[in-house]
Structure formats: structure tokens, C-alpha cells
């Protein structure tokens, strides 16, 4: 079943089109990643999906409700957390939880259960009376997530939830996101950390308000970069580089420490050419192998080729 179905969603601010005719679907219990640079239209899309910004045209069904016609029903079924960790810094941990519980109108039995849960995931049991502003960033972030889903929504939107948090806290946070997904909550997350994209079941890459790539990590890496990357381990590397360049092998040759990357069109198998070119020379060739492109490779390639056209 689809948790979210977006059809031709468009948002214009005056003459500027922030989101242009975007369509995609998100399955229930999926971790769905939104990638793209600042200003790519990620946040505007999320705001429309949360029902706080009315689309200029198109529509989206979120948890079965139209963001255009039933924004209030949409809001009731989603949770939202922004990169600002929107908690009240001058309230205590427990007052923050109580406030959001109250705002969502939780009845007391459910509330107590959810409060316990929120304290647990943030690691704040026994510290309910701490002023929220005094908490370290990572803990605040988890508390913010706890309060954002205090009402057990079907879907939660996380807008750059891990910016400004140290790597260990980031890892813990992703464990938490996984835990939510296992409880059948759909998680939509925007990020510009590409290594975080690897944690997502499905991804879209946005640029200038349009989706320019979509799929899971494997599909993105294989369907969008029509090139093969060869990694050559050899000695001496500098001499190897010169020889390869003289022979015009591949499209691009770069040195990475003591290895060399050759990027070549997929259709040509250049492994043999490389071996042949190097065999006649005084070079110790340890290995030549095809490697997986990283998401960085793919996205840089996609954004650059889009700009060229």
C-alpha cells in the first residue's frame, strides 16, 4: 500500500517555480530519502506534503488524504521534525513532551505510554526536569523526534534532521529511524549527506524543483552513470598515470593516493587495453578491477550533465 502518492505537484511563488510537476510514490514503512542541494525544492515539497503550503497545481495523497482539500486530516496523521529541533528551550524535558502530547490531544493513558517511550529513546529517563536548552545536540535531536511522533503518526517527515550533529549521534539517530520504519511508520527524510542516502530504501534526487533521478541505491548507482570505473593498483603510480594518458585510455584518469581511477564508457571493456599498455613498461601491476561508483560519482555526474544541456 502506498503511504504517499504525489501527482504533478507544482508550487510557484510569483514567477519563480520552486517545485515543478513532481510525481512519486512512497510505500508504507519505507525510509524514503529526498536528496538535493539547498534550494532544490526539497523543503517546499515537504511543506506541501505536510499540509502547511497549498500547491499551485497538482495534488498529493498523504495517508489517504488530499493535501489540497484536507490539509487538517493530513496534519493529524503525520509527524514533522525540522533541522531546528523545534523544542522549547526554556521548558523542561517533561514539559515539552506534555505540551506536544496536549497539542495532539492524547488521552492520558496513551500519553503516559508515549511519554515513557519518548524519554527512553532520548535516553532521558530520570532527567525529566532538565531544562531542554541545556541538553547536548544529539539528545535534543532524539527528544525532538520523540515529540514529533508522540501521537504515533503513520508518516513522519524529517527535514535535514542530522545537520549540525556529531557522527556518533547521527548513527544513533539513524538506528532510531530504522526502529520507526520497523514499526511500520513511513519515514521521509531530506539530507545532503550522501552516505546517509545509503540507509534509505528509496530515493529521489531533486534539482531546480524537478526530480532528476529516482530508485534505490543500487538502481541509482547503475542506471544513471553509464560508465565503468576501473581501479588500478600499481607502482610507481606517477609513471603509470603518464603512460595511461599518453595512450588516451578512457574518458578520465585520476589519481587517488596510490591507486588510479580510470572512468570509461560502459560499452568498452578497457581492462585489457590497460593491461597491454602497462605490460610493455617497467611497471609492477598489482591489480585492475571494476569498482562500484559511489553516489557522489553519480550525483556529480547527473548535476553536471544537466547543467551542460
Amino acid at each position, binding site marked *: 500500500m502506498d503511504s504517499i502518492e504525489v501527482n504533478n505537484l507544482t508550487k510557484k511563488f510569483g514567477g519563480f517555480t520552486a517545485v515543478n510537476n513532481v510525481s512519486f510514490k512512497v510505500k508504507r514503512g519505507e525510509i524514503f530519502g529526498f536528496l538535493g542541494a539547498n534550494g532544490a525544492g526539497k523543503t517546499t515539497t515537504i511543506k506541501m506534503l505536510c*499540509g502547511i503550503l497549498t500547491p499551485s497545481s497538482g495534488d498529493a495523497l498523504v495517508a489517504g488524504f488530499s493535501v489540497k482539500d484536507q490539509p487538517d486530516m493530513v496534519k493529524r496523521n*503525520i509527524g514533522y*521534525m*525540522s533541522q531546528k529541533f*523545534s523544542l522549547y528551550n526554556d*521548558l523542561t524535558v517533561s514539559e515539552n513532551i506534555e*505540551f506536544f502530547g496536549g*497539542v495532539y*490531544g492524547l488521552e492520558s493513558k496513551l500519553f503516559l505510554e508515549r511519554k515513557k517511550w519518548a524519554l527512553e529513546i532520548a535516553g532521558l529517563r530520570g532527567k525529566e526536569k532538565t531544562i531542554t536548552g541545556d541538553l547536548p545536540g544529539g539528545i535534543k535531536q532524539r527528544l525532538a523526534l520523540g515529540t514529533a511522533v508522540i501521537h504515533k503518526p503513520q508518516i513522519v517527515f524529517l527535514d535535514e534532521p542530522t545537520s549540525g550533529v556529531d557522527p556518533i549521534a547521527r548513527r544513533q539517530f539513524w538506528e532510531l529511524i530504522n526502529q520507526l520504519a520497523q514499526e511500520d511508520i513511513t519515514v521521509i527524510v531530506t539530507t545532503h549527506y550522501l552516505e546517509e542516502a545509503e540507509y534509505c530504501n528509496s530515493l529521489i534526487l531533486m534539482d531546480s524543483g524537478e526530480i532528476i533521478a529516482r530508485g534505490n541505491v543500487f538502481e541509482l548507482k547503475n542506471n544513471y552513470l553509464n560508465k565503468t570505473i576501473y581501479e588500478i593498483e600499481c607502482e610507481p603510480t606517477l609513471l603509470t598515470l603518464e603512460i595511461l594518458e599518453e595512450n588516451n585510455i578512457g574518458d578520465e584518469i585520476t589519481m587517488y593516493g596510490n591507486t588510479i581511477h580510470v572512468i570509461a564508457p560502459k560499452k568498452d571493456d578497457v581492462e585489457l587495453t590497460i593491461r597491454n599498455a602497462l605490460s610493455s613498461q617497467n611497471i609492477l601491476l598489482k591489480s585492475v578491477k571494476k569498482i562500484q561508483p559511489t553516489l557522489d560519482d553519480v550525483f556529480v555526474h547527473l548535476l553536471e550533465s544537466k547543467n551542460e544541456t
Partner: protein
Amino acid sequence: MKLNKMRAVAKKEFKQLLRDKRLLFVIFFFPILLLVVFGYAINFDVQHVKLAVLDRDHSPESRLLLEKLNATVYFDVVKTLDSPSEIDEAINRKIAQAVMVIPPDFSKNVNTPLKDAKLQFVIDGIDGNTATIIKNYVDTFTELYSARLNAKFLNRLGKVITPTISVTPLFEFNPDLRSTVFLLPGLIAMILIVTASVTVALSFVREKEHGTEEQLRVSSLNSIELIIGKSLPFILVSVINAAMVLLAGYLLFGVAVKGSLLLLALAVLIFVIASTALGILVSVISDSQQVAFQLASLISMLPSLILSGFIFPIESMPKIIQLFTNLTPATFFIKAIRAIILKGVGLQNFWPQLVYLSLFPIILFGLSSAITKRKMDRA
């Protein structure tokens, strides 16, 4: 609209308010400061005029005159001068506000029928208002004094004179023409509109600055629940403030409420809601607490000080300016509470003011929501 959601918002807002010592200080210190400033420092009443005397007659008559003058609350003889050359100095150096010169022939003329005895008064005219009042005191005093001399004179001749016409003016509602009595209602208005609009504007803009506003908009809270929930604590604080100022007005200046406390509470409530709406309008326009603070204090304080009739009577303003006085809710509130506090009259005398007052929240909320809509489409 759900009550328990509203209660959650109000509870949170109240806790934040109680924890914000700086804001609390401002809320409760500001009224006291204004009360003291307007109650004591700004006093339009003229009493105990400092008077210097140049007595060139040195007669029993001149001494009696001085004695009588000094016995009133209006004049205090602060200095006796020896020569006319000292008059200017006494006025210039602010030793005296007025100098009375008794000419050498005073006693002689007083005792001679059909002869005018003359007295000269030199009054410091820098503050025209005060000078006029002093002149009035002088006129009244000399009139009464000469009437008494006349009576005595005729008595000595064996005739009894009854005063022809005596005017006893009774100033209704403020018999002693004390300015505190006149100022107190306006003071309450200004304190309420400034504290309510500033605190409400700050509280809403803070949510904007910290990103919690966005969080609230995504929650299932609707704007009515949010606005009422957030404003309630400030409305409560403002009502407490009003009660405090009234109590202080009674204790310090003896201004008691003549009319119905219930009607007064009703007027205060409507006015506070209007002030809150003004604060919300400011918060919609401004994006930082700094801007909100300045804008809110400016557009709440200035009109309520200048246009509301608080200090300057609306009736004596030019017609065109009189139109502008309708722009601040303080104008209507002041009229209403003057009627309640000072006159003690019933609703039939000021209900139109309350109706006009009730229009303000409606207009201000409408304006705020229209601006919000426009902003969201451009954001």
C-alpha cells in the same frame, strides 16, 4: 476548536512566562514606574506657589494681608525682598514663581474710602499654563480680601452688608480638579495596551525565531486554538495589572471606582483583547523580537499617549486630528472607564464606546490573517 488543546498551549505559555524573569519584571515594573511618573512627577495641579514679597509699606495692614495669603494652600511666602532690584533675580533664579509688591501707600489707600489700593504681582510666565493659574489665584484672593475689607469698613460705620451674588462653582466628578484623577483612566489604558501588545508580539515572534511556529503549524492545532491559548496568559496578566494600577491609584491618590466593578472588568477585558490583537498584528509583520518590540511599543504607546484624550482633550484638537483619534482603541476605552471610574454612571451612557472597542479585535485579526495569507504565498 478543542479546549484541551488550547489548555495545553496556555499552560506552556504560562510556564514560559513565569520562567522569563526579565519579561515579568518589565510587565510589573512598567506600570509602577508609569504610575509614579504620572502620579507624582507630572502634576498639573498648582499649589504652594513660591512667592517672594517686597513690602514697601511695613504697616499692620500689609502684614495682615501677607498672613492671610500665607495661610492659604496656594501660596507659600519663601522670601522677603528689600529692594525692587531683587525682583528680577528672584524670578530668574527660580527662587520664586511670583513676586508680590506692596506699594508704600497701601495701608493709607486701604483705609481711605473711594481710593484704590494697588498691589503688583510679577509672575514667571515661562510656563503659561501655571502662570494663568497663579493669576487666577491672585485674582480670587484679592477679590475675596477686598470684599472682606469692605464689609469691615461698612461695619465700622454701623452698616451691615450682605454679599450680592456669590458664585460657588462645583466641579463635578473631580471636585478638586486634581490631575491624577483625570489621568488615572488614561494611565490604565496606556499600561494595558503597551504591556499586552508588546508581550504578545514578543511571544509570537519568538516562536517564529525558534522554528517552533512551524512545528505548531504542522501539528493539528488550528490557528484559533493557538491564538487563544497563547493569548490567555497575557490577558490574565493584563487584567491583574489593571487591578494593580487601580488599587495603587486608590491607595496612593485616593481615586476610588465610583461605578460598577463588573462593567469596569468588562471594559478592561475587551480592551485587553484589542491590545492582544494589536500585538498579533505586529508579530505577523515582524520577523525578529527586536523589531517586534520596537514596533509594538511604538504603535501602542504613541497613539494612546497623544491621540486618546489621555492627556490632551480630544475636543480641543483640530477636526482632522479628531478623526485620527479613532485609530486607537485607547480612545474608546478611556471614555468608557472615565465614565465608570469617575462618574459612576451606567452602561446606557457609554455602551457605544464598548461597541466601537469590540470592533478593534475583529478588524485587527482580519488584517493579521490577510497579511499571513499573502506572506505564505510569497514565502
